[in-house]
């Protein structure tokens, strides 16, 4: 490449941190210098806490990445790297080889050698941060649509076999084997079938799918194309949250570019297969991530789940056989078809194959997205990749699986991350939110936070979820406000177990998990607040800074009502 390339991270995380100002400054500065530059915005490379990230690659040299860049720093950074030939020392944090013969700079670590990157394996996020998501040529230059080209000339049965052999399971949280789901739907006779991409990522603290949609939308379209062909669908829908305007915008651009190239539409690649994709914007309802509720929403109804069976693969959208796959699942398909099912199945554990993307947030040094092979331990993710807990604080717990998941204490740090192990430990894979808590975090408040979310989002159709979560939340609030009484914890366990066992859909069946898991691992905190009416954790709503010595003795212990 003979031009200087400048890449600015323009995912939502980059834009909010000021990436637009950086883009403008680069444009202005390069115009001033009369420098012909290849400037583009890329999706998030995963290091959200380092945004805005700007990379500068001179012809024949490695790509140098700068963190925390603001518009006013751009001129100085470019002057250093272009005129002096050395990266600006203040903001540089790594370099990266985009081509094998790129000449490196001395004394700057390689991206792949950073502790953050070392243990990661990028399959789903292979293109995020490297390509311009608004330019289909960037995607095809990295083997984009090659997998679809291959799959569309196989038989649908052979395509399904590849997916089955890869062992990939649904990444939305349920973990159902994707190939088997496709096979069910393939075998149902119907005049019309639908293929839906579930991009209604709603867990508070999860943003994996958003980064894929913003950073590499074509990989999702390609996955849908392959899936649609395998089951015999001609229409695909992407159900995406309205709260992701940038993702919607980039998907729209991607779809129209794919149509122009003939990758969507009639007789794709001359294979005789027709397929087109439409976007359906959600309207703000977490329960619409549940597949039957999602379909009701596409049909223009209140997004409420219905009992299964019939499964969507038999009777789905408008009563027709339908497959619903998550964004991350679909983004895996291109590499599976190009590298082979065996390559994919070689990663991960016996029952959980491949990689998983997690959104690592909370009290953690490196907030952002990480993609790891299944089977890695929580400790490796939190300490090696995440950089541990900031401010010298102690690790207390990690919540996996968002509002459906559970809180795991330090004694579970060596749990391997796969579907079965996490459930056995009382957590859950979920869609991939991972929230780290330090010693100042009140676990009861954490449980209350997640339950408050689920209770708010309960659609109200079935009684256990509608009323059960409400009663549980009231009890938790009472405990948080120092009005808990003996027996409350036992009641929470009994009611929580009933809600899990009797709710209609996944939302209710998992909503009590944060409460049950915190009781399981941190019961002493509940007991203390109920009996002694004190909580020493700063995030507790009733927390007061410890009074000077002597005052503590005045705290009255109120007898239970």
């Amino acid at each position, binding site marked *: 490449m003979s031009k200087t390339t400048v890449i600015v991270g323009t*995912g*939502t*995380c980059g834009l*909010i*941190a000021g990436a637009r100002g950086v883009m403008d400054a680069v444009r202005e500065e390069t115009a001033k210098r009369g420098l012909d530059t290849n400037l583009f915005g890329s999706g998030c490379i995963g290091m*959200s*806490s*380092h*945004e805005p990230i700007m990379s500068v690659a001179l012809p024949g040299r490695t790509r140098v990445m700068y963190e925390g860049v603001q518009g006013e720093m751009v001129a100085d950074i470019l002057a250093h790297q272009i005129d002096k030939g050395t990266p600006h020392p203040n903001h540089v944090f790594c370099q990266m080889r985009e081509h094998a013969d790129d000449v490196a700079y001395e004394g700057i670590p390689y991206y792949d050698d950073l502790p953050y990157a070392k243990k990661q394996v990028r399959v789903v996020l292979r293109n995020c941060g490297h390509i311009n998501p608004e330019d289909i040529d960037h995607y095809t230059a990295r083997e984009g649509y090659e997998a679809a080209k291959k799959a569309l000339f196989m038989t649908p049965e052979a395509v399904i076999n590849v997916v089955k052999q890869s062992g990939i399971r649904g990444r939305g949280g349920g973990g159902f084997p994707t190939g088997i789901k496709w096979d069910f739907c393939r075998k149902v006779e119907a005049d019309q079938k639908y293929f839906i991409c579930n991009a209604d990522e*709603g867990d*508070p*603290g*999860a*943003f994996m799918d*958003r980064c894929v949609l913003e950073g590499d939308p074509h990989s999702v379209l390609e996955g849908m194309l392959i899936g649609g062909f395998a089951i015999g669908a001609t229409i695909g829908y992407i159900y995406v949250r*309205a*709260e992701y305007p940038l993702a919607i915008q980039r998907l729209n651009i991607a779809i129209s570019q794919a149509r122009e190239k003939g990758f969507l539409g009639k007789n794709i690649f001359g294979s005789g297969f027709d397929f087109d994709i439409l976007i*359906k*914007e*959600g*309207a*703000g*309802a977490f329960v619409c991530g549940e597949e039957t509720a999602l379909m009701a*929403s*596409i*049909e*223009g*109804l*209140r*997004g409420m789940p219905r009992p299964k069976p019939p499964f969507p693969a038999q009777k789905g959208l408008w009563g027709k056989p339908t497959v619903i796959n998550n964004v991350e699942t679909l983004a895996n398909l291109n590499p599976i078809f190009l590298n082979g099912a065996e390559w994919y199945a070689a990663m991960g554990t016996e029952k959980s194959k491949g990689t998983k993307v997690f*959104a690592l*947030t*909370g*009290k953690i040094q490196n*907030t*952002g997205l990480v993609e790891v092979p299944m089977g890695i331990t929580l400790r490796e993710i939190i300490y090696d990749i995440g950089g541990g807990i900031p401010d010298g604080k102690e690790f207390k717990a990690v*919540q996996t699986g*968002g509002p459906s998941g559970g809180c795991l204490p330090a004694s579970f740090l060596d749990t391997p991350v796969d579907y079965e192990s996490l459930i056995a430990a009382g957590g859950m894979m979920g869609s991939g*939110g991972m*929230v780290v*808590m330090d010693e100042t*975090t009140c676990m009861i408040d*954490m449980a209350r*936070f997640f339950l408050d979310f689920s209770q708010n989002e309960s*659609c109200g159709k079935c009684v256990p979820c509608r009323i059960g979560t409400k009663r549980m939340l009231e009890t938790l609030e009472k405990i948080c406000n120092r009005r808990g009484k003996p027996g409350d914890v036992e009641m929470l366990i009994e009611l929580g177990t009933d809600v899990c066992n009797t709710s209609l859909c996944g939302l209710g069946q998992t909503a009590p998990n944060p409460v049950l898991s915190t009781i399981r691992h941190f019961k002493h905190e509940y007991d203390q607040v109920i009996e002694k009416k004190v909580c020493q954790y700063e*995030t507790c*709503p009733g927390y007061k800074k410890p009074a000077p010595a002597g005052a503590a003795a005045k705290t009255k212990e109120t007898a239970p009502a």
Partner: protein
Amino acid sequence: MECGCEIDLSQTELIVAPYRNKPYALIPVLQKVQATYGYLPKEAVSIIARRMNIYESRVYGVATFYAQFRLQPKGENTIKVCVGTACHVKGSGRISEELQKSLGIKPGETTEDRKFSLEHVACVGACGLAPIILVNDDVYGKLAVEDTLAKLEKYK
């Protein structure tokens, strides 16, 4: 009408025209109507129901089910408090309480002078800057509770 302003209902007619008798398109129609007026005016809802051939009650059923739809106009400035997990862990709850106390409204409500609307939003995707609030398009990250109210001054 709540705001005392005139509503140009011909806009609603234009939006709904391609979807006559197509009830499945209700959500996109409501989204477009809300994008036009900033909320769903009562008069517009009746037109939508009549043209799409569905009961008004069903339109309200859908409009009140989804968090995105508003039946009241919004304030001049919208304050969004991120209550995603990362922000919660870093204290967004206290920031919201401070705002609620000072503005005298709850999340989802608008002040009487229509200056401010307060909203809770799930993760805005800037966890590295938590806790974070947005006032219109302006971002205030790594916000301390005691600095929150000062940020509103320039919008008053």
